[in-house]
């Protein structure tokens, strides 16, 4: 049977909860500020972006290419209920096409918090690293179970896994799915582009078509850039269940 809490203990618990809430608020405000700034100028300074790319090599046809950004993508819209329903209908990460077996590096220093958590999807294998700034990085569609163990420390740029293919054939759609979430709850996803130091506008310059964001007929200019995208609350309501929009699902 629990003993009654003293007034001091109660105060300490409330203080700790308040501190935790404040910390989360700071993180969320920082992310929001970063997003707002990014929205205004299209980019943010390196000092505001604490993480690096998940690859050690530059983009290209022999290394990796950004194939789907975070947020209100047309692809996510088409699959907003079936695939992305748990993430408010958004594509709550970045997709990088890469050959199976391409080394993945940690975007920052941190501690391994989860290995192959099936609740996160993005199979066949995945990995989560919690970073000191209360942000977690999540790596999905890995080729094999990472050799890292929960609690193990990793450095920024350290090889942590190999990219794979959700279809497990390495022929269908081999790619890395990268998310940034709040830690330790992992309940919110943040646009990684706002926190990874890279020239995203230049990285997006590959192939023959623009990046396709879904355009809501009520507000066609909303959520149309790499930077201006909503945060994801897992389990929250759909954000892109538009009455009418373009492109159609046909």
């Amino acid at each position: 049977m629990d003993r009654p809490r003293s007034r001091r203990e109660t105060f300490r618990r409330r203080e700790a909860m308040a501190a935790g809430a404040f910390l989360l608020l700071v993180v969320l405000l920082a992310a929001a500020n970063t997003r707002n700034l990014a929205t205004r100028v299209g980019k943010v300074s390196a000092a505001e972006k604490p993480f690096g790319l998940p690859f050690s090599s530059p983009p290209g046809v022999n290394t990796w290419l950004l194939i789907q950004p975070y947020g209100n993508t047309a692809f996510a819209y088409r699959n907003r209920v079936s695939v992305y329903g748990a993430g408010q209908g958004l594509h709550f990460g970045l997709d990088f096409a890469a050959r199976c077996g391409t080394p993945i590096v940690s975007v920052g220093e941190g501690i391994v918090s989860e290995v192959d958590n099936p609740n996160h999807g993005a199979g066949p294998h995945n990995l989560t690293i919690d970073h000191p700034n209360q942000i977690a990085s999540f790596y999905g569609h890995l080729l094999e179970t990472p050799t890292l163990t929960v609690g193990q420390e990793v450095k920024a740029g350290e090889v942590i896994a190999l990219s794979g293919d959700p279809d497990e054939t390495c022929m269908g759609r081999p790619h890395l799915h990268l998310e940034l979430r709040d830690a330790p709850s992992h309940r919110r996803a943040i646009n990684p582009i706002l926190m990874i130091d890279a020239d995203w506008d230049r990285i997006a310059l590959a192939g023959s078509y623009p990046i396709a964001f879904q355009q809501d007929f009520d507000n066609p200019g909303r959520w149309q850039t790499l930077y201006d995208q909503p945060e994801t609350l897992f389990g929250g309501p759909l954000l892109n269940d538009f009455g009418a929009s373009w492109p159609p699902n046909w």
Partner: protein
Amino acid sequence: MTSGPRGRRIGEGIHLKLVVALILSAVLAGCAGDLGAAPEPPAKNAGGGLPMQGGTQPTTPPPFGSHTLQPAPITPTPAVTVRLYPISEPGCCSRPAWSADPGQVVFLDRPSQEAEIGIYGIPIAGGMKRLVTIRVGLYSKDWSLVAYPEGGDTFVERLSDQRRWLIPSKGRGVVFSRDASRIAWQAGSLAITNPDRRRDEIWVAQWDGSGERRLVSVIGGGLIGWAQDDEALIVAGRMREAGPSGIWRLPLAKGEGARLLWETPSPRGALLSPQGGWLAFYQAFSEAVRQNGLYVIRTDGSQGLRLEKFGSYRWRREGTLLLLPLNLEQPDAQLWEIDVSRAEQRQLEIPSPADFRIANNDWMPSPDGSKVVFVSSEDYALWILGLPGD
């Protein structure tokens, strides 16, 4: 502006051929994974009816038996300088395209909650944004027809009298031929499946949906668009489960089988030239690293080469490709023009490179090849890049 019986306003003489390309790019990107088609128009009046026949059978021999493994030698020519200027307010819009004349840039917009959703335009010579039409859909080159979804079906509407026809595509989007006499579409599951194993059927019909017939079933690929003469379709994938994968020419004429133009396991970013005579695409992540890169091939199978550069590319005109190399070591983006038929290239120098930052890979040459419109990542305004002549 004119106002139709249903209150639709149609800009006089406005031809949204690149709206078609813009919209199709999104549609086909979704339908065929990395494959997409920008059915760029021009047109000869192919006329005639649609031959009625069964599905075509593939023939074997690719005209290019072996690939060009080394980048084709491209002759450099002196650089020339381009002009750069904004035409809209910051934060204006996304996915710009061109009117036919190329005097106007058009885009999907709803300027205020009181305004109508529709396709709006801005004159590049200066002027206010104005509504071009409230009908959002896929337009034929001459803007005589528009295809749009409604209630799970696809309709084609003739703009001259607003009559419309139900297309038997089971709600799938269609691609108009350049002369707007025919349509093509692909049918298959829209669910997320292994794209290498997905099977899609390629269909053609008259523009009003009559005379529809299934041409072929393709595995791991899909419809790219219409070839130069509108008498053949260009598709990607495999014609049979264990067969070769690549780019195929699929004639509509009876008795002619599919012809493999280029064998490649998974072509990406397929883009037809304005006249349909060339196709650009790239191959990536193959273990045969020397085969990865950007390719241009003729859609009649007579020529093909691999370029030494890779990045973001668009056709400026028939046989002339614009390319922004993907090279982050360069402090600013570069713009190159490659004459693929002459195997020549030249750099187009940007006078103020800091102003040439493109958002969302969102840029498009004008129909006459004299300009490029792009969304700036600095202010999200529409900017124009005036290109030099030949």
